[in-house]
Protein backbone atom coordinates (compact mmCIF):
# COMPACT_ATOMS: atom_id res chain seq x y z
CA UNK A 1 0.00 0.00 0.00
CA UNK A 2 1.27 3.51 -0.78
CA UNK A 3 -0.09 7.05 -0.88
CA UNK A 4 1.51 8.05 -4.16
CA UNK A 5 4.66 7.55 -6.17
CA UNK A 6 7.92 8.13 -4.30
CA UNK A 7 11.46 6.97 -5.11
CA UNK A 8 11.01 3.77 -3.11
CA UNK A 9 7.79 2.96 -4.99
CA UNK A 10 9.53 3.48 -8.33
CA UNK A 11 12.56 1.47 -7.28
CA UNK A 12 10.31 -1.34 -6.09
CA UNK A 13 8.25 -1.43 -9.28
CA UNK A 14 11.27 -1.34 -11.57
CA UNK A 15 13.23 -3.80 -9.40
CA UNK A 16 16.08 -1.53 -8.41
CA UNK A 17 17.69 -2.95 -5.27
CA UNK A 18 19.39 -0.84 -2.61
CA UNK A 19 22.68 -1.80 -4.26
CA UNK A 20 21.62 -0.46 -7.65
CA UNK A 21 23.24 2.92 -7.37
CA UNK A 22 26.02 4.64 -9.27
CA UNK A 23 29.57 3.66 -8.44
CA UNK A 24 31.72 5.60 -10.90
CA UNK A 25 32.91 9.12 -10.18
CA UNK A 26 33.16 9.94 -13.91
CA UNK A 27 29.59 8.99 -14.87
CA UNK A 28 26.96 11.73 -14.99
CA UNK A 29 23.40 12.61 -15.95
CA UNK A 30 21.57 15.86 -16.66
CA UNK A 31 18.19 17.47 -16.92
CA UNK A 32 17.39 20.70 -18.77
CA UNK A 33 15.03 23.53 -17.88
CA UNK A 34 13.70 26.11 -20.34
CA UNK A 35 11.12 27.84 -18.21
CA UNK A 36 12.30 30.45 -15.79
CA UNK A 37 12.19 27.80 -13.11
CA UNK A 38 14.77 26.91 -10.53
CA UNK A 39 15.25 24.09 -8.10
CA UNK A 40 16.25 24.74 -4.53
CA UNK A 41 19.09 22.70 -3.08
CA UNK A 42 17.16 22.70 0.21
CA UNK A 43 14.11 21.11 -1.47
CA UNK A 44 16.31 18.38 -2.92
CA UNK A 45 17.91 17.73 0.47
CA UNK A 46 14.50 17.56 2.14
CA UNK A 47 13.12 15.29 -0.57
CA UNK A 48 16.02 12.88 -0.17
CA UNK A 49 15.67 12.95 3.61
CA UNK A 50 11.95 12.18 3.40
CA UNK A 51 11.90 9.66 0.59
CA UNK A 52 15.36 8.25 -0.10
CA UNK A 53 16.61 6.92 3.22
CA UNK A 54 16.57 3.30 2.04
CA UNK A 55 19.21 3.61 -0.69
CA UNK A 56 22.54 5.35 -1.27
CA UNK A 57 22.09 8.70 -3.01
CA UNK A 58 23.45 12.19 -3.44
CA UNK A 59 21.57 15.18 -2.08
CA UNK A 60 23.29 17.87 -4.11
CA UNK A 61 23.47 18.77 -7.79
CA UNK A 62 27.10 18.82 -8.90
CA UNK A 63 26.93 21.37 -11.65
CA UNK A 64 24.46 24.03 -12.72
CA UNK A 65 25.08 25.23 -16.27
CA UNK A 66 23.38 28.57 -16.81
CA UNK A 67 21.54 30.83 -14.51
CA UNK A 68 19.97 29.73 -11.18
CA UNK A 69 18.08 32.40 -9.28
CA UNK A 70 17.19 32.32 -5.65
CA UNK A 71 13.49 33.04 -6.16
CA UNK A 72 10.62 30.63 -5.76
CA UNK A 73 11.37 27.07 -6.86
CA UNK A 74 9.45 25.69 -9.83
CA UNK A 75 7.53 22.44 -9.60
CA UNK A 76 8.90 21.18 -12.93
CA UNK A 77 12.51 21.90 -11.97
CA UNK A 78 12.09 20.25 -8.57
CA UNK A 79 10.47 17.19 -10.14
CA UNK A 80 13.25 16.66 -12.70
CA UNK A 81 16.10 16.89 -10.24
CA UNK A 82 14.43 14.90 -7.46
CA UNK A 83 13.53 11.93 -9.66
CA UNK A 84 16.57 11.67 -11.93
CA UNK A 85 18.63 11.55 -8.72
CA UNK A 86 16.37 8.86 -7.26
CA UNK A 87 16.65 6.30 -10.04
CA UNK A 88 20.11 7.44 -11.12
CA UNK A 89 21.02 7.42 -7.44
CA UNK A 90 24.55 8.37 -6.42
CA UNK A 91 25.33 9.55 -9.96
CA UNK A 92 26.76 13.01 -10.50
CA UNK A 93 23.95 15.25 -11.75
CA UNK A 94 24.01 18.42 -13.81
CA UNK A 95 21.20 20.89 -14.36
CA UNK A 96 21.11 22.96 -17.53
CA UNK A 97 19.09 26.06 -16.75
CA UNK A 98 18.28 27.91 -19.98
CA UNK A 99 15.62 30.52 -19.57
CA UNK A 100 17.54 32.56 -22.18
CA UNK A 101 20.08 35.12 -21.07
CA UNK A 102 18.65 37.71 -23.39
CA UNK A 103 15.02 38.46 -24.17
CA UNK A 104 15.57 37.79 -27.88
CA UNK A 105 17.08 34.32 -27.37
CA UNK A 106 15.24 31.03 -27.77
CA UNK A 107 15.95 29.02 -24.60
CA UNK A 108 15.77 25.62 -26.30
CA UNK A 109 18.14 26.75 -29.03
CA UNK A 110 20.50 28.12 -26.37
CA UNK A 111 20.58 24.64 -24.75
CA UNK A 112 21.36 22.99 -28.10
CA UNK A 113 24.24 25.40 -28.64
CA UNK A 114 25.61 24.67 -25.17
CA UNK A 115 25.46 20.94 -25.82
CA UNK A 116 27.30 21.37 -29.11
CA UNK A 117 29.94 23.57 -27.54
CA UNK A 118 30.99 21.59 -24.46
CA UNK A 119 33.56 18.85 -24.98
CA UNK A 120 32.63 17.18 -21.71
CA UNK A 121 28.93 16.76 -20.99
CA UNK A 122 26.89 14.10 -19.15
CA UNK A 123 26.10 10.95 -21.14
CA UNK A 124 22.36 11.12 -20.41
CA UNK A 125 20.03 14.14 -20.85
CA UNK A 126 16.40 14.22 -19.74
CA UNK A 127 14.31 16.98 -21.30
CA UNK A 128 10.66 17.80 -20.68
CA UNK A 129 9.91 20.28 -23.44
CA UNK A 130 7.82 20.16 -26.55
CA UNK A 131 5.94 22.22 -29.14
CA UNK A 132 3.24 21.26 -31.61
CA UNK A 133 4.91 20.15 -34.83
CA UNK A 134 2.53 22.30 -36.86
CA UNK A 135 3.64 25.45 -35.02
CA UNK A 136 7.28 25.07 -36.07
CA UNK A 137 8.97 25.59 -39.41
CA UNK A 138 10.28 22.56 -41.26
CA UNK A 139 13.69 24.24 -41.63
CA UNK A 140 13.93 24.61 -37.84
CA UNK A 141 12.84 21.04 -37.07
CA UNK A 142 15.13 19.49 -39.67
CA UNK A 143 18.10 21.42 -38.36
CA UNK A 144 17.32 20.59 -34.73
CA UNK A 145 17.08 16.97 -35.83
CA UNK A 146 20.64 17.21 -37.16
CA UNK A 147 21.69 18.58 -33.77
CA UNK A 148 20.29 15.40 -32.18
CA UNK A 149 22.28 13.35 -34.71
CA UNK A 150 25.38 15.25 -33.59
CA UNK A 151 24.60 14.32 -29.98
CA UNK A 152 24.05 10.67 -31.01
CA UNK A 153 27.39 10.62 -32.86
CA UNK A 154 29.07 11.66 -29.60
CA UNK A 155 27.37 8.86 -27.64
CA UNK A 156 24.88 11.00 -25.76
CA UNK A 157 21.49 9.58 -24.79
CA UNK A 158 18.85 12.29 -25.20
CA UNK A 159 15.41 11.56 -23.73
CA UNK A 160 12.34 13.70 -24.37
CA UNK A 161 8.94 13.63 -22.66
CA UNK A 162 6.25 12.53 -25.12
CA UNK A 163 3.84 15.28 -23.97
CA UNK A 164 0.72 15.42 -21.83
CA UNK A 165 -2.07 15.69 -24.39
CA UNK A 166 -2.34 12.13 -25.67
CA UNK A 167 -2.51 12.07 -29.45
CA UNK A 168 -3.38 15.80 -29.39
CA UNK A 169 -5.94 17.44 -31.61
CA UNK A 170 -5.81 20.05 -34.34
CA UNK A 171 -8.74 21.60 -36.15
CA UNK A 172 -7.98 22.03 -39.84
CA UNK A 173 -9.21 24.90 -42.01
CA UNK A 174 -12.11 22.86 -43.37
CA UNK A 175 -13.31 22.06 -39.85
CA UNK A 176 -12.10 18.47 -39.73
CA UNK A 177 -9.71 17.20 -37.06
CA UNK A 178 -6.34 15.47 -37.02
CA UNK A 179 -4.03 14.38 -34.23
CA UNK A 180 -1.28 16.79 -33.28
CA UNK A 181 2.25 15.39 -32.91
CA UNK A 182 4.77 17.10 -30.71
CA UNK A 183 8.40 17.98 -31.48
CA UNK A 184 11.17 17.09 -30.44
CA UNK A 185 9.30 13.99 -29.20
CA UNK A 186 8.76 13.14 -32.88
CA UNK A 187 12.44 13.36 -33.81
CA UNK A 188 13.79 9.98 -34.98
CA UNK A 189 17.10 10.72 -33.21
CA UNK A 190 15.84 11.03 -29.63
CA UNK A 191 14.31 8.48 -27.27
CA UNK A 192 10.80 9.53 -26.33
CA UNK A 193 9.25 8.61 -22.98
CA UNK A 194 5.52 8.13 -22.45
CA UNK A 195 3.54 7.71 -19.24
CA UNK A 196 1.75 5.00 -17.28
CA UNK A 197 -0.23 4.66 -14.06
CA UNK A 198 -0.62 1.83 -11.59
CA UNK A 199 -3.68 -0.32 -12.25
CA UNK A 200 -4.47 0.14 -8.56
CA UNK A 201 -3.32 3.69 -7.69
CA UNK A 202 -2.49 2.77 -4.09
CA UNK A 203 -0.54 -0.42 -4.66
CA UNK A 204 2.60 -1.40 -6.56
CA UNK A 205 0.71 -3.36 -9.19
CA UNK A 206 1.13 -3.73 -12.94
CA UNK A 207 0.79 -0.59 -15.06
CA UNK A 208 -1.81 0.69 -17.49
CA UNK A 209 -1.43 3.66 -19.82
CA UNK A 210 -1.80 7.16 -18.44
CA UNK A 211 -4.54 8.78 -20.56
CA UNK A 212 -2.44 11.94 -20.96
CA UNK A 213 0.62 10.08 -22.33
CA UNK A 214 1.70 11.77 -25.57
CA UNK A 215 2.10 9.59 -28.62
CA UNK A 216 1.44 9.23 -32.31
CA UNK A 217 3.09 9.72 -35.68
CA UNK A 218 5.17 12.60 -37.04
CA UNK A 219 3.91 14.57 -40.00
CA UNK A 220 7.46 15.78 -40.70
CA UNK A 221 9.88 12.91 -40.15
CA UNK A 222 9.51 9.62 -42.02
CA UNK A 223 9.51 6.39 -40.06
CA UNK A 224 13.11 5.32 -39.31
CA UNK A 225 14.14 1.78 -40.27
CA UNK A 226 14.81 0.76 -36.66
CA UNK A 227 11.11 0.91 -35.78
CA UNK A 228 9.45 -0.07 -39.07
CA UNK A 229 8.73 -3.70 -38.15
CA UNK A 230 7.43 -2.87 -34.66
CA UNK A 231 5.09 -0.17 -35.90
CA UNK A 232 3.87 -2.25 -38.82
CA UNK A 233 3.06 -5.02 -36.36
CA UNK A 234 1.03 -2.57 -34.26
CA UNK A 235 -0.86 -1.17 -37.25
CA UNK A 236 -1.70 -4.67 -38.48
CA UNK A 237 -2.66 -6.19 -35.15
CA UNK A 238 -4.48 -3.36 -33.31
CA UNK A 239 -8.13 -4.34 -32.95
CA UNK A 240 -9.25 -0.75 -33.49
CA UNK A 241 -7.42 2.22 -34.98
CA UNK A 242 -8.48 5.84 -35.43
CA UNK A 243 -9.46 6.82 -39.00
CA UNK A 244 -6.36 7.10 -41.24
CA UNK A 245 -7.09 10.77 -41.89
CA UNK A 246 -6.12 11.52 -38.27
CA UNK A 247 -2.48 10.45 -38.46
CA UNK A 248 0.40 9.80 -40.83
CA UNK A 249 1.02 6.08 -40.53
CA UNK A 250 4.34 6.38 -42.37
CA UNK A 251 5.79 8.96 -39.97
CA UNK A 252 8.19 8.53 -37.05
CA UNK A 253 6.10 6.88 -34.34
CA UNK A 254 6.55 7.63 -30.64
CA UNK A 255 6.97 7.11 -27.68
CA UNK A 256 9.72 4.49 -27.54
CA UNK A 257 9.21 3.44 -23.95
CA UNK A 258 7.46 4.70 -20.83
CA UNK A 259 7.48 4.91 -17.05
CA UNK A 260 5.05 5.86 -14.32
CA UNK A 261 3.76 9.40 -14.80
CA UNK A 262 0.92 9.59 -12.31
CA UNK A 263 0.57 10.66 -8.72
CA UNK A 264 4.14 11.67 -7.80
CA UNK A 265 5.29 13.30 -4.57
CA UNK A 266 7.55 16.33 -5.10
CA UNK A 267 9.12 18.70 -2.57
CA UNK A 268 9.03 22.27 -3.79
CA UNK A 269 9.60 25.40 -1.69
CA UNK A 270 10.07 23.03 1.28
CA UNK A 271 6.53 21.63 0.93
CA UNK A 272 5.91 17.99 -0.06
CA UNK A 273 3.21 18.04 -2.75
CA UNK A 274 1.26 14.98 -3.89
CA UNK A 275 -0.63 14.34 -7.16
CA UNK A 276 2.02 15.62 -9.53
CA UNK A 277 1.71 13.93 -12.91
CA UNK A 278 2.86 14.05 -16.51
CA UNK A 279 5.53 12.68 -18.79
CA UNK A 280 7.76 15.33 -17.22
CA UNK A 281 7.83 12.87 -14.33
CA UNK A 282 8.43 9.67 -16.28
CA UNK A 283 11.28 11.08 -18.38
CA UNK A 284 13.78 11.79 -15.58
CA UNK A 285 12.93 8.38 -14.08
CA UNK A 286 13.99 6.69 -17.33
CA UNK A 287 16.95 9.08 -17.55
CA UNK A 288 18.24 7.92 -14.16
CA UNK A 289 17.83 4.26 -15.13
CA UNK A 290 19.78 4.77 -18.37
CA UNK A 291 22.52 6.58 -16.43
CA UNK A 292 22.68 3.60 -14.07
CA UNK A 293 23.05 1.24 -17.04
CA UNK A 294 25.81 3.47 -18.40
CA UNK A 295 27.49 3.21 -14.99
CA UNK A 296 27.61 -0.60 -15.26
CA UNK A 297 28.70 -0.46 -18.91
CA UNK A 298 31.52 1.96 -18.11
CA UNK A 299 32.62 -0.27 -15.20
CA UNK A 300 32.99 -3.13 -17.68
CA UNK A 301 35.00 -1.01 -20.08
CA UNK A 302 32.11 -0.74 -22.54
CA UNK A 303 31.11 2.53 -24.23
CA UNK A 304 27.99 4.34 -22.98
CA UNK A 305 24.61 3.53 -24.52
CA UNK A 306 24.48 6.54 -26.83
CA UNK A 307 21.40 6.83 -29.01
CA UNK A 308 19.29 4.05 -27.55
CA UNK A 309 16.54 3.36 -30.09
CA UNK A 310 18.27 1.01 -32.54
CA UNK A 311 19.42 -1.21 -29.65
CA UNK A 312 16.06 -0.96 -27.87
CA UNK A 313 13.96 -1.97 -30.88
CA UNK A 314 16.43 -4.73 -31.84
CA UNK A 315 16.39 -6.11 -28.33
CA UNK A 316 12.60 -6.26 -28.24
CA UNK A 317 12.30 -7.72 -31.72
CA UNK A 318 14.76 -10.56 -31.03
CA UNK A 319 12.01 -12.45 -29.26
CA UNK A 320 10.32 -12.66 -25.87
CA UNK A 321 12.11 -10.52 -23.32
CA UNK A 322 11.32 -9.35 -19.83
CA UNK A 323 13.58 -6.29 -20.09
CA UNK A 324 10.48 -4.09 -20.28
CA UNK A 325 7.04 -4.58 -18.79
CA UNK A 326 4.63 -4.58 -21.71
CA UNK A 327 1.74 -2.19 -21.02
CA UNK A 328 -1.32 -3.53 -22.79
CA UNK A 329 -4.30 -1.76 -21.20
CA UNK A 330 -5.66 1.73 -21.72
CA UNK A 331 -5.92 4.43 -24.35
CA UNK A 332 -4.92 8.07 -24.51
CA UNK A 333 -6.77 11.30 -25.24
CA UNK A 334 -7.42 12.90 -28.59
CA UNK A 335 -10.08 14.92 -30.43
CA UNK A 336 -13.58 15.24 -29.02
CA UNK A 337 -15.58 14.55 -32.13
CA UNK A 338 -17.97 11.95 -33.46
CA UNK A 339 -15.27 10.02 -35.31
CA UNK A 340 -12.89 9.29 -32.43
CA UNK A 341 -14.91 10.40 -29.34
CA UNK A 342 -11.91 11.66 -27.41
CA UNK A 343 -9.87 8.51 -27.85
CA UNK A 344 -6.51 8.36 -29.61
CA UNK A 345 -4.56 5.11 -29.78
CA UNK A 346 -4.81 2.20 -27.38
CA UNK A 347 -2.05 0.10 -25.88
CA UNK A 348 -1.61 -3.48 -26.96
CA UNK A 349 0.96 -6.27 -26.85
CA UNK A 350 4.48 -5.22 -27.97
CA UNK A 351 5.08 -1.65 -29.19
CA UNK A 352 2.18 0.84 -29.24
CA UNK A 353 1.92 4.65 -29.65
CA UNK A 354 0.82 5.22 -26.04
CA UNK A 355 3.47 3.41 -23.98
CA UNK A 356 6.06 2.39 -26.59
CA UNK A 357 7.67 -0.92 -25.62
CA UNK A 358 6.59 -0.51 -22.00
CA UNK A 359 8.31 0.29 -18.72
CA UNK A 360 11.74 -0.78 -17.44
CA UNK A 361 12.44 -3.95 -15.53
CA UNK A 362 15.89 -2.83 -14.43
CA UNK A 363 17.78 -6.10 -13.81
CA UNK A 364 16.67 -7.61 -17.11
CA UNK A 365 17.10 -4.37 -19.06
CA UNK A 366 20.60 -4.01 -17.60
CA UNK A 367 21.45 -7.57 -18.58
CA UNK A 368 20.17 -7.03 -22.11
CA UNK A 369 21.91 -3.69 -22.60
CA UNK A 370 25.23 -4.88 -21.17
CA UNK A 371 25.45 -7.16 -24.17
CA UNK A 372 22.97 -5.93 -26.79
Amino acid at each position, binding site marked *: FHLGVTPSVIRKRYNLTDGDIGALPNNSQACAQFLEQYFHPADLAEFMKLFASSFGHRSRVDQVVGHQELGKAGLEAS*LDVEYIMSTGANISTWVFSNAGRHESQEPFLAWLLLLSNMSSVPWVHSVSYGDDED*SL*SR*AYMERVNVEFMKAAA*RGLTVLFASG*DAGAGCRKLAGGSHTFRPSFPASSP*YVTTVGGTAFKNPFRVTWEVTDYISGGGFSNVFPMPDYQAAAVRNFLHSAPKLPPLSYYNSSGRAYPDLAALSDNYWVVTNRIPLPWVSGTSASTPVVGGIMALINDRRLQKGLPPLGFLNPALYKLQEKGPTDALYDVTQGCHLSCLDAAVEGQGFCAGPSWDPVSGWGTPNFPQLLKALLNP
Partner: protein
Amino acid sequence: GWAPEQDQSLRVPAEWRHLGPVAPLDELVLTFALRQQNVEHLVKLVGRVSDPDSPQYGKYLSLEELRTLVQPSLLTLSTVHKWLGAYGIKGCKTISTLDFLECVMPASTAERLLPGAQFHRYESGQRSAVRSPVPYTLHEDLAEHIDFVGGLHRFPAERKVVTRASGKEEATARYQQRAA
Protein backbone atom coordinates in the same frame (compact mmCIF):
# COMPACT_ATOMS: atom_id res chain seq x y z
CA GLY B 1 14.11 37.78 -50.71
CA TRP B 2 13.99 34.20 -49.52
CA ALA B 3 11.93 33.16 -46.48
CA PRO B 4 13.52 30.12 -44.82
CA GLU B 5 10.75 29.78 -42.25
CA GLN B 6 7.61 30.78 -44.11
CA ASP B 7 5.72 27.89 -42.46
CA GLN B 8 6.64 28.98 -38.90
CA SER B 9 3.62 29.90 -36.78
CA LEU B 10 3.52 33.61 -35.97
CA ARG B 11 0.82 33.20 -33.34
CA VAL B 12 1.63 34.91 -30.05
CA PRO B 13 0.84 32.52 -27.15
CA ALA B 14 -2.13 33.72 -25.08
CA GLU B 15 -0.05 34.30 -21.95
CA TRP B 16 2.24 36.82 -23.69
CA ARG B 17 1.12 40.47 -23.69
CA HIS B 18 2.22 42.81 -26.47
CA LEU B 19 4.06 45.88 -25.14
CA GLY B 20 4.95 47.57 -28.45
CA PRO B 21 7.90 47.91 -30.79
CA VAL B 22 11.43 47.93 -29.40
CA ALA B 23 13.58 51.06 -29.65
CA PRO B 24 15.93 51.13 -32.68
CA LEU B 25 19.02 50.96 -30.47
CA ASP B 26 17.78 48.13 -28.23
CA GLU B 27 20.21 45.23 -28.50
CA LEU B 28 19.13 41.86 -29.84
CA VAL B 29 20.89 38.48 -29.86
CA LEU B 30 20.15 36.51 -33.02
CA THR B 31 21.28 32.95 -33.72
CA PHE B 32 22.26 31.99 -37.25
CA ALA B 33 22.17 28.28 -38.08
CA LEU B 34 24.83 27.85 -40.77
CA ARG B 35 24.47 25.08 -43.35
CA GLN B 36 26.50 22.05 -42.31
CA GLN B 37 28.52 19.72 -44.50
CA ASN B 38 28.33 15.93 -44.73
CA VAL B 39 24.90 15.55 -43.14
CA GLU B 40 24.27 12.39 -45.21
CA HIS B 41 27.53 10.97 -43.89
CA LEU B 42 26.46 11.89 -40.35
CA VAL B 43 23.17 10.00 -40.82
CA LYS B 44 25.07 6.84 -41.81
CA LEU B 45 27.62 7.28 -39.05
CA VAL B 46 24.93 7.60 -36.37
CA GLY B 47 23.29 4.44 -37.74
CA ARG B 48 26.57 2.53 -37.38
CA VAL B 49 27.67 3.75 -33.93
CA SER B 50 24.16 3.12 -32.52
CA ASP B 51 23.54 -0.31 -34.06
CA PRO B 52 24.64 -3.14 -31.75
CA ASP B 53 25.22 -5.38 -34.77
CA SER B 54 27.64 -2.94 -36.39
CA PRO B 55 31.41 -3.32 -35.81
CA GLN B 56 31.41 0.43 -35.18
CA TYR B 57 28.87 0.20 -32.32
CA GLY B 58 29.91 2.51 -29.50
CA LYS B 59 32.81 4.06 -31.45
CA TYR B 60 31.67 7.61 -30.85
CA LEU B 61 33.21 10.81 -32.17
CA SER B 62 34.89 13.43 -30.06
CA LEU B 63 33.65 16.99 -30.43
CA GLU B 64 36.74 17.77 -32.54
CA GLU B 65 36.04 14.85 -34.89
CA LEU B 66 32.44 15.97 -35.14
CA ARG B 67 33.56 19.49 -36.05
CA THR B 68 35.77 18.12 -38.82
CA LEU B 69 32.75 16.28 -40.21
CA VAL B 70 29.98 18.88 -40.07
CA GLN B 71 31.60 22.32 -39.97
CA PRO B 72 30.25 24.65 -42.68
CA SER B 73 32.30 25.08 -45.84
CA LEU B 74 34.77 27.95 -46.09
CA LEU B 75 32.47 29.48 -48.70
CA THR B 76 29.55 29.44 -46.25
CA LEU B 77 31.65 30.92 -43.44
CA SER B 78 33.10 33.67 -45.60
CA THR B 79 29.76 34.51 -47.28
CA VAL B 80 27.93 34.82 -43.96
CA HIS B 81 30.72 36.79 -42.27
CA LYS B 82 30.94 39.16 -45.26
CA TRP B 83 27.18 39.67 -45.21
CA LEU B 84 27.15 40.42 -41.48
CA GLY B 85 30.23 42.64 -41.82
CA ALA B 86 28.48 44.69 -44.49
CA TYR B 87 25.93 45.67 -41.82
CA GLY B 88 28.65 46.46 -39.29
CA ILE B 89 27.98 43.29 -37.26
CA LYS B 90 31.22 42.05 -35.78
CA GLY B 91 32.37 39.90 -32.88
CA CYS B 92 29.77 37.17 -33.34
CA LYS B 93 30.28 34.13 -31.11
CA THR B 94 30.55 30.71 -32.68
CA ILE B 95 30.59 27.20 -31.17
CA SER B 96 32.99 24.25 -31.40
CA THR B 97 31.34 22.82 -34.50
CA LEU B 98 31.31 26.29 -36.14
CA ASP B 99 27.75 25.74 -37.39
CA PHE B 100 25.98 28.38 -35.28
CA LEU B 101 26.71 32.07 -34.87
CA GLU B 102 25.30 34.24 -32.10
CA CYS B 103 25.44 37.94 -32.93
CA VAL B 104 24.51 41.02 -30.95
CA MET B 105 23.15 43.98 -32.90
CA PRO B 106 20.77 46.92 -32.53
CA ALA B 107 17.14 46.20 -33.50
CA SER B 108 17.35 48.70 -36.38
CA THR B 109 20.28 46.77 -37.89
CA ALA B 110 18.45 43.46 -37.43
CA GLU B 111 15.45 44.85 -39.30
CA ARG B 112 17.65 45.91 -42.21
CA LEU B 113 19.55 42.62 -42.16
CA LEU B 114 16.37 40.53 -42.20
CA PRO B 115 13.91 42.40 -44.44
CA GLY B 116 10.35 42.03 -43.21
CA ALA B 117 11.22 41.49 -39.55
CA GLN B 118 9.81 43.98 -37.04
CA PHE B 119 10.87 43.52 -33.45
CA HIS B 120 8.34 43.95 -30.66
CA ARG B 121 8.52 43.36 -26.92
CA TYR B 122 6.15 40.96 -25.13
CA GLU B 123 5.66 40.18 -21.47
CA SER B 124 4.45 37.14 -19.58
CA GLY B 125 4.52 37.49 -15.79
CA GLN B 126 8.07 38.44 -14.84
CA ARG B 127 9.48 37.46 -18.23
CA SER B 128 9.92 39.55 -21.31
CA ALA B 129 10.73 38.48 -24.86
CA VAL B 130 11.51 40.29 -28.08
CA ARG B 131 10.06 38.65 -31.18
CA SER B 132 8.90 39.56 -34.69
CA PRO B 133 5.18 39.06 -35.40
CA VAL B 134 5.89 39.12 -39.13
CA PRO B 135 8.14 36.81 -41.18
CA TYR B 136 11.73 37.65 -42.05
CA THR B 137 13.51 37.15 -45.35
CA LEU B 138 17.13 36.71 -46.33
CA HIS B 139 18.95 37.67 -49.49
CA GLU B 140 18.60 34.83 -52.01
CA ASP B 141 22.38 34.42 -52.16
CA LEU B 142 22.24 33.17 -48.55
CA ALA B 143 19.77 30.36 -49.26
CA GLU B 144 22.50 27.75 -49.55
CA HIS B 145 24.39 28.98 -46.49
CA ILE B 146 21.82 29.55 -43.72
CA ASP B 147 19.21 27.06 -42.43
CA PHE B 148 17.28 29.53 -40.27
CA VAL B 149 17.69 32.50 -37.96
CA GLY B 150 16.73 31.95 -34.32
CA GLY B 151 15.29 34.58 -32.01
CA LEU B 152 12.52 35.92 -34.22
CA HIS B 153 9.35 33.89 -33.81
CA ARG B 154 9.37 31.02 -31.29
CA PHE B 155 8.34 32.05 -27.78
CA PRO B 156 9.81 30.33 -24.71
CA ALA B 157 7.91 27.14 -23.87
CA GLU B 158 5.25 27.39 -21.21
CA ARG B 159 4.85 23.68 -20.58
CA LYS B 160 4.13 22.75 -17.01
CA VAL B 161 3.60 19.53 -15.17
CA VAL B 162 0.04 18.33 -14.76
CA THR B 163 -1.38 18.03 -11.34
CA ARG B 164 -3.83 15.20 -11.24
CA ALA B 165 -6.47 17.40 -9.66
CA SER B 166 -6.43 19.72 -12.67
CA GLY B 167 -6.25 16.72 -14.99
CA LYS B 168 -9.40 15.34 -13.43
CA GLU B 169 -11.19 18.67 -13.81
CA GLU B 170 -10.12 18.77 -17.42
CA ALA B 171 -11.30 15.21 -18.03
CA THR B 172 -14.65 15.97 -16.35
CA ALA B 173 -15.08 19.06 -18.52
CA ARG B 174 -14.27 17.02 -21.62
CA TYR B 175 -16.79 14.35 -20.74
CA GLN B 176 -19.46 16.92 -19.94
CA GLN B 177 -18.82 18.56 -23.29
CA ARG B 178 -18.97 15.16 -24.96
CA ALA B 179 -22.24 14.28 -23.21
CA ALA B 180 -23.77 17.59 -24.27
